[in-house]
């Protein structure tokens, strides 16, 4: 069964008639690291929003492990790490509470946490601590997110995805503004997750990185331009033409 299967998905912004996504077909099996490449405005973030279920497609069909998105949503199957610009970094929240937002689907099942939303079970904090430890951010657990550097921010959101125990991971620009050390940590974790059967999609401009670590590359510019092995698809010539067009 495919982790993500899209049949002819189209999408548009509400105030415009132009399609952001034009008949997207995808068949992504579990346990693959996929690079999603395309110029700005190519629809990468829109595709992510549709997979997550935040945005509805105009037309087409999307199945996540064979089921429609709203069924999978409640189980927290899809984890999402936003690009830096999508988050208000002055928001009053501590690092460990960010990671806690990945545990909401686990919290929901208990009546006690519905009645006492501020009493978080010890076992939850253990999961969160472990996730933060894996990305090397445990000592930052009680720090506000405004105190983090670019790489640390990415690692915290990766920890959230880990704590969520999701089977599909969407990463929007995971290597933007990231220092060397954070980058290594992030790649190690992604490879480990892939081994466990996690499907990972990375939207990125970092073509060299993508060629190194991805199993498959999809070039998107409102429709799918190319889909295949990174060496073939991420050819400098094709890409540079594509990026100049935009």
């Amino acid at each position, binding site marked *: 069964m495919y982790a993500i299967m899209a049949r002819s998905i189209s999408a548009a912004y509400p*105030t415009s008639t132009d399609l952001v996504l034009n008949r997207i077909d995808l068949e992504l099996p579990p346990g693959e690291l996929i690079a999603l490449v395309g110029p700005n405005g190519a629809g990468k973030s829109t595709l992510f929003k549709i997979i997550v279920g935040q945005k509805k497609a105009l037309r087409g069909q999307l199945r996540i492990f064979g089921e429609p998105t709203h069924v999978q*949503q409640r189980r927290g199957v899809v984890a999402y790490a936003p690009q830096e610009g999508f988050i208000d970094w002055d928001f009053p929240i501590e690092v460990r509470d960010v990671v806690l937002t990945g545990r909401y689907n686990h919290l929901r099942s208990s009546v006690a946490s519905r009645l006492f939303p501020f009493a978080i079970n010890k076992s939850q904090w253990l999961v969160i601590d472990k996730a933060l430890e894996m990305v090397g951010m445990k000592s930052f657990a009680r720090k*506000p997110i405004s105190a983090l550097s670019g790489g640390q921010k990415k690692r915290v959101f990766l920890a959230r995805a880990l704590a969520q125990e999701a089977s599909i991971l969407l990463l929007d620009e995971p290597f933007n503004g990231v220092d060397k050390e954070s980058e290594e940590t992030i790649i190690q974790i992604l490879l480990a997750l892939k081994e466990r059967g996690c499907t990972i999609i990375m939207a990125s401009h970092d073509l060299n990185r993508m060629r190194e670590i991805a199993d498959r590359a999809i070039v998107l510019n409102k429709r799918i331009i190319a889909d295949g092995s990174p060496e073939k698809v991420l050819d400098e010539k094709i890409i540079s033409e594509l990026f100049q067009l935009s």
Partner: protein
Amino acid sequence: MIMIMRFGEALVTFLINGLMVIVNILPPSIAEVFQFAFMQRALLTSILVGILCGVLSCFVVLKGWSLLGDAVSHAVLPGVAGAYLLGIPFAIGAFIAGALSALGMGFIERNTRIKQDASMGIMFTTCFALGIVMISRIATTTHLMHILFGNVLGVSMSSLILTLAVSVAVLGLVYFFFREILLYIFDPIQAAAMGIKTSFLHYGLMLLITLAIVASLETVGIILVVAMLITPGATAYLLVNKLSHMVLIGTFVGFFSAVVGLYLSFVYNIVSGGAIVLVASAIFLLAALFAPQQGILRNLIFNRFQRFEK
């Protein structure tokens, strides 16, 4: 209906008696002000409104909805005038008008190329103009003044019960949905990934704000309620780095300015809504100057030191 009113009255009396126990501990010069029945009702209303607006103001500030509160509060006016014409309670008319305008603004923003500030501007000035025109035809100017600027000293038992009911409902909803509201404001895409109905939360929050505005009509009036829906949250935002703490501080600022403002308005014979808002503004100013991490004073000193080190 009568049963509900009886119950509400009993609850109000109970709360006022409780308040008076605390008030009577205070020095006699302060306590004597609150011996009048109308002052006791005013005190309870102000406290409820202060807490209610204090909680919601945190979400308003973080969501960037300051203009929304402004817009909805002005849009409430034709609802009040309409309710007066039809002879139904002000609050019902106000709520319907406020809710419709909040939904209308969301609709315009989502479906046209007009940006949020302009859509709000059009919506609330239109409603406000409509309200003023309606009122100029039907009512005396004193009514208009009371709606615009509040008259907490003349608060009636029925509107006090309404304020109490709204407060309990809003605070209860905020308590039970705190986690969801937090995630929706912080990271709406993750909220969707967790199966949270984000459009439900979006309009739900708007309706809670509308309810708070309706409940505040008689205390601070529709113009100054905007301040109570921004200032406490903005003050708290300067002081802490955790949303739950921010809500607690916002609540306290709302509560404190309501009580102190009411007291000052009685002692110096000034308009109560204005006094309450000015107290809140004064607290904000103090926080802006002296906040430990974000304060202007701290930044000045910090920058001076840095220059010195160079």
